[in-house]
């Protein structure tokens, strides 16, 4: 993304798709989030980085309904929301790809894409006998994968366990992209992948952004973050230490902010 595009993403006339204000989350005496705010604008990749225990995961969980914040507010498209469960976030068009990959190994690719929101056959067979539209779902799954340019994954009837790590990740990302109408959240999508597979996933992230879907990306991997992110939210000790861009700061700066050696 060029500087001008970044500027436009930042002009306050554009309404953020997602807006968090002063989120607080504690676990007993442990403070997970200490008043964190975050804006996500249309068509951007927002990376969230931070050391272990900085509150990255907690922040994401609060944004996606996996945890309920103690206080603070969350808006989606300007509308105040109150997520109690992951399904609530999903109903608002926020799809999450979890680090441990929410895919079912023994089920095939198409079944995984539609897991939890299977489609039934039209007509009485679907209505009264609840028969699944297996063919239709396979066709749509294929379409979705083609749209995303996942060329290595053409047979949607293969069990996911037969796929490589990158392909599994692609299935999980494709599911999020297929159903995430507003935001796609990726938690450490390249953590378990090799170089080639990581690049495929990063390309997927760019493709999603180019389709207009904003992406929140949590990662430990600085080169990956600086490769795809438009803005970088740095968590430190439960707070947002800074929000920078790959243009304004170097990787060394980011690490320094992350570890508290410097401020933005």
């Amino acid at each position, binding site marked *: 993304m060029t500087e001008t595009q970044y500027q436009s993403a930042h002009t306050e006339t554009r309404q953020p798709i997602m807006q968090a204000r002063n989120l607080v989350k504690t676990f007993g005496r442990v403070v997970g989030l200490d008043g964190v705010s975050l804006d996500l604008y249309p068509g951007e990749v927002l990376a969230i980085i931070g050391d272990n225990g900085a509150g990255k995961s907690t922040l994401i969980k609060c944004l996606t309904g996996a945890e309920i914040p103690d206080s603070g507010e969350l808006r989606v498209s300007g509308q105040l929301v109150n997520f109690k469960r992951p399904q609530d976030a999903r109903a608002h068009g926020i799809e999450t790809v979890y680090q441990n990959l929410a895919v*079912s*190994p023994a089920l095939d690719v198409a079944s995984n894409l539609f897991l*939890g929101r299977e489609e039934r056959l039209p007509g009485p067979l679907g209505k009264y006998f*609840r028969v*699944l539209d297996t063919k239709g779902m396979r066709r749509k799954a294929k379409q979705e994968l083609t749209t995303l340019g996942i060329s*290595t994954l053409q047979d949607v009837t*293969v069990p996911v366990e037969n796929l490589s790590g990158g392909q599994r990740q692609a299935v999980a990302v494709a599911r999020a992209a297929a159903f995430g109408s507003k935001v796609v959240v990726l938690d450490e999508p390249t953590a378990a992948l090799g170089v080639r597979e990581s690049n495929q996933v990063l390309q997927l992230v760019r493709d999603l952004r180019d389709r207009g879907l904003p992406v929140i990306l949590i990662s430990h991997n600085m080169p990956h973050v600086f490769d795809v992110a438009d803005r970088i939210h740095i968590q430190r000790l439960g707070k947002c230490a800074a929000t920078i861009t790959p243009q304004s700061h170097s990787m060394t700066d980011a690490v320094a902010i992350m570890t508290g050696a410097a401020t933005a």
Partner: protein
Amino acid sequence: MTQQQTAGPPTTGQADLAEEFLDRQTPLNRVRNVLHRYPAVSPALVLLIAVIVFGLLNDRFLRVENLSLITQQVSVVGTLAIAQTLIILTAGIDLSVGAIMILSSMVTAQLAVNNGLPAAMALLVGLLVGLATGALNGLLVTRLKLPPFIVTLGTLNIFIALTLLYSNGATVRGTSMPGLLTWTGTTFPVGPVRISVGVVVMILLYVLIAFILGKTAWGRHVYAVGDDKEAARLAGIAVNKVLMSVYLAAGAVLAVGAWIQIGRTNAASPNGGVDLNLDSITAVVIGGTSLFGGRGSVWGTLLGALIVGVFRNGLSLAGLDVLYQTLAVGVLIILAVSIDQWIRKAKS
């Protein structure tokens, strides 16, 4: 790489020699991949071979009367094994299937004979007993988060005790029961074969459960929950609801099994039925359903139940002591699980 029928060149970038090496198609690998995709193939082969071998050993084996007898002998365990399959698919195990069936059959028989309840009503109460016991197992598994093995080990003893308390240990004879209760034991001719109503009921249950498991979202969720519970939850599946409904469905199937048992033995007896637990698990395992959950099918289970039935019948026709039947079943279980493990290594 997508599922490969041919060892094509790697699809991206540089040639990946290691990947090619791993994917190379030796004949053994190809067999394994087929078995991995169609888990019912191996039990079907075993059944076929067993039938041929026993047919050669003793010409009485392949007579229609004998084959019809095998189906009747299999009908009770075959039905129990449906319930067992449902639960094992969710990565659980149910040690109480036999006890639930016996409890349900005793309640049905006693209500009809001693309390003069109409037969249909007695069967309905038997169904309620199945549902209630299934619900108890399900609640303990989902609410108290206890392992299914422990839960059903406990309820197994509870249900056996309840059965004995309720029946005072007395057997209700089929001759004193209304005709509807023992109807499942009656046979009718189909060509040269005599088929019992119980066998037909069992087959209908298999068709019904296979349809639900294969064609509905609920079925897919059962597999997903057994495969990876956390992944299923994150995909938006209400895991506890699915588990609860599986235990309820199993309870209902077991109540039908109780009805078949009354007809088959022409009695309702509070004793016995405990070894049916292990037989049902044996049928499921031999049928290729994984004890780790998430893979398998009820058709495999039917084949598994038939294999056990064929072995027991064939070995006794061959004049071998009953102990050898037990020995053979033991060997079968070990073989089936080893093959399952080997198949699971395919391409993963």
